[in-house]
Every structure is written in structure tokens, then in C-alpha cells.
């Protein structure tokens, strides 16, 4: 790997770390559980690596490993986003649903 690429990758890493710190420290404790499940879903982006491993089909072993990896990361992506949305839907400022609750 050319050294320029290596250096560029480190730039990306460091900048992402700074940006991540800024963005994430603004998340209120109220939303810490959704935050964790959201970052989990997002880091399911390792699906990208898994897809290439599974699809390049160089050997059966790598294809099987890739297949398991695809299953794991897809589970995280889909499950993570669905659960995060389910949680966020519940957070309400006022009891707007109080009337709805009574009518149920």
C-alpha cells in the first residue's frame, strides 16, 4: 500500500474521531440508549467489507466466512435501525397521547 494512502487514511481516522467527539458529546443522557443502538446500526457498515468477502468468491472458506459476516452485520443494521426508531417514537415532550390513552 502506498504511504500516501496510509497517511490519508490516518487523516480520515483522526478527523472522524474529533468530529465524533463533538457530535456525540451533545447527545443528552435522555437518548443514550437510542444513541448506542444507533451507532451500533451505523457500525454495521462493516457489511460493506463482508459483502466483498462473500461475493469475491476466491475460495469456499472465504465465501463462507463472508456469508456469516454478511448475516451478522445485516442483522445489526436492520435490527439496530428498527429498534432505534421504535425507541425514538416513544419519546414525547408532552402527554399528547393522554387523550388517546383514555380513548383506548
Amino acid at each position, binding site marked *: *500500500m502506498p504511504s500516501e*494512502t496510509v497517511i490519508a*487514511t490516518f487523516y480520515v481516522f483522526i478527523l*472522524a474521531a474529533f*468530529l*465524533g467527539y463533538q*457530535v*456525540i*458529546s*451533545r*447527545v443528552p*443522557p*435522555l*437518548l*443514550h440508549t*437510542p*444513541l*448506542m*443502538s444507533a*451507532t*451500533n*446500526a*451505523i*457500525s454495521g*457498515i*462493516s*457489511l*460493506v*467489507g*463482508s*459483502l*466483498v*468477502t*462473500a*461475493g*469475491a*468468491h476466491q475460495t469456499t*472458506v*472465504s*465465501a463462507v*466466512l463472508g*456469508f456469516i*459476516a*454478511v448475516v*451478522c*452485520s*445485516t*442483522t*445489526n*443494521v*436492520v*435490527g*439496530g*435501525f*428498527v*429498534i432505534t426508531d*421504535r425507541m425514538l417514537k416513544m*419519546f*414525547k415532550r*408532552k402527554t399528547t397521547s393522554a387523550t388517546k390513552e383514555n380513548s383506548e
Partner: protein
Amino acid sequence: MRTYFIEFSYLLASILFILGLRGLSHPETARRGMHLAEFGMAAAVIGTLLQREIISYEWIIAGLLLGSTIGLAMGVWVPMTAMPQRTALSHAFGALAASLVGVSEYYLHGAKLGEFRMCAIGFEVLLGSLTTTGSLVAFGKLQGLVPGTPLVYKGQNIFNLSLLAVTIGCFILLLFYPGVAALFYLMLGLAFIFGILLVLPIGAADMPVVISLLNSYAGLASAATGFAISNNVLIIAGTLDGGSGFILSIVMCKAMNRSITNVLFGAFGNVTEKAGAASAGDMREAHLEDVGVQLAYARQVIFVPGYGMATAQAQHALRELANTLEDRGVTVKYAIHPVAGRMPGHMNVLLAEANVPYSQLYELDHINPEFPTTDVAVVVGANDVVNPDARDNPQSPITGMPILEVDRAKLAVVLKRGGGKGFSGLENPLFYKPNCEMLYGDAKDSITRLTQAVRQA
């Protein structure tokens, strides 16, 4: 042209992920943010599928279908009370995926890997494997499959640290001799074992820290994958995940006034009698009708939920009680300690599920000054987070931990399953204070009966 399109999809995904997380800074914008992130994920996946390296799609389609089915089933059916377990399990999945991609890369290229890629793959496999097994143990503890108490034996820390040293030794040797496959698989196996041994000695009450830390490792494993296959979106998303887990671990540690090292190697929750200074006096059992009257005629009531509320699934009953009180003109607030429950934000989610508006949920610093003017504070299955020893007794193992000052309320009512000690095994002097009354029994049941008592008052 195709390469530009693929790279553009990754860039778009990175931007949308960051905007998505930024949306989480407020509950009103959070859902919209997550939709952006979902869109970003879809873009990245479509971009990847167009890559020339991918020549066959059977495995991919099968994997995507199976994963989506499992993910959707979990997403729809997992109850909110089981959120900590699910999170632990998803850390295991994410880390396993990263680890397997690393193993496959090594299997294919082995000795031909340069130092840089070998280093990245080493990190990926090391972090990925130990996070996989560590998260599975955490899952077992949270689900009750593995005893929640710390599992300790003599020389444990020395044994674990030597194991870690050997594992890292293998990793360093691999950088010089990437062709020696035995080293790689030895490192892989040891990392799996180390993950188990790392989490076994940690008590269930410390799970908020452990989950956050494993979150961080899983993210960093993804980032390392990005380094190994030089893919920027992987690096960015992995770093965001890793950073978020790291920040949360620090927040959790601060909320317990302990260091990460202490959590990992301190085997907390195993404290025996020695530290808890025998408290004088007796615990007073509350009379249900009296408490009902006190609540009904209070001006302000603060509820303090803990893990006991989650185990008893009492959040809906609690909301019912709060509604009844509010109908009578009582001001109701909820005090949330950062480490109440088994994962960061656990209580907030459960209360939101029960339709409690988030404007009624208060953090430590905002609610503590209000306890002295509060008529009744009701502790629902919390213990250590309301232990006044943390504030008053410098000898206490939890000294310095910020607490909810329930003991300063005019009346504190503690809902508890039995007379036993809390998770840490410490005596709680709060229970012996003259302004404290105990209400034994299942939390949900007690709350339902309290609601009836309030209605009759």
C-alpha cells in the same frame, strides 16, 4: 466512472451518518436524523454491490435475506426491558463480522500482506474476537444465563493480564513474520478466551460501563476493517461508534466515581460485610393506606426508578400511579441516575415506553436541590444510587459516587422485593432513617396497590 459512483455513495453515506448522529442531540430531531442514516446505509450497500470484485451474488443474497429476517424479528419483538441484552448481542454480531472479514483477508493473502495491512488486520481480529466472546458473556449475565455475580478466583488478574500479554506478543511477532499462520490462529483463539475472562469477573451492576466499553471495541474493530481494506466510510462509521462507546464509558464511570481499571479488574459487587458499617435502628415497614394518603395530599412527588423497575416491568403501573396523582394536582417528577439500570439511558427508554413525557425526566444535578422540598420520594427498585453512605461515609466502597438525595425528602418510600442487600452487597443507611419507610413486595404489585390506596384517600 463506476469507481466514482461507488466512492460517491460512500461519501454520501459518511455525511448522512454524521448528520444522523447530530440529530440525536434532541429528541425532536432524532427520528429524522436516523432516517438520514438509514438512507446513507442503503446508498453504501448499493454502491458496494456494484464493485467489480463481486462476481457472485448467491451468498450475498442469502446472507442479506437471512440477516434482515433475524434483524427485523429482533427489532420488532424484543421488549424494551430486554434492551441491554439485545445491545450486548448486537455488539457480539458486529464484532464477529469484523473479525471474520479479518480472518478471511489473512486466509487469502497471508504472507503477502504488508506491515500496515497486517497491523490493521491484527487489530481488527484482536478487538473483534475479544468483543465477540466478551459481549456474549455480558449477554448471558444480563439474560440470567450466567450468574450476575462476579466470578473471581485467586490470581485472576495476573492470569488474565499474562494471557493478554501473550496475545499481544503473537500480534507483534506477526508484524515481523506475517507468513506464520500458527501465530495468527493462536492470537485469534487467545483473543476469544480473553474476551470471556475479561467479562466474567465483572458484576451485573457494572454492565453499563462494560456494555459501553464493548460498544467502543466493536466500533474500533469496524474502523480497523476500514484500514485493512482501505475504505473510508468504514473508518468513519467505526470511529464514530468507537468514540461514542468511549464517551459513554467515561460518563458511566464518572457517575460511579470509579476508574475504568477499577471496573474491569475490581470485581465490584463482591464486597463482604466488612465495609458496611452496621447501621443503627430498625427498618420501618410502611402502611399502604398511610402512604396512599401521603401521596394523595402531597404537593410534589419524585419517583426514583432503578433496575428493580425493569425486572418487575413496573413502568406502566408507575405511569398509572403518576396519572392518578396528577389528576389530583400533585406535581410528579422522575429522577434518573445515569447508572440506574443495566445500560446508559435504560430508565429513560422504559419510562418513555410507558408514555412518560421526557420533560418530566430529570437528571441528577437538576433534581437533587428539589428533594428537601419534596413531600414524598418513591424509590422503585433502586438501591446503590440512593445510598447516602456514598456522600457521608468516606470509608464506604462507593464513596464519592454522586447519588440522588432521597434521604433529604420529607418522606422516602422504598419499594423493594425483600429485606436483602442491594447488588453491591452494601448496607444502605437510608433504610434506617426516621423519614424512610419500606414497602416490600413485587414493585409492580406494590405500585398497583398504592394507586388504589391513592384513589381511596
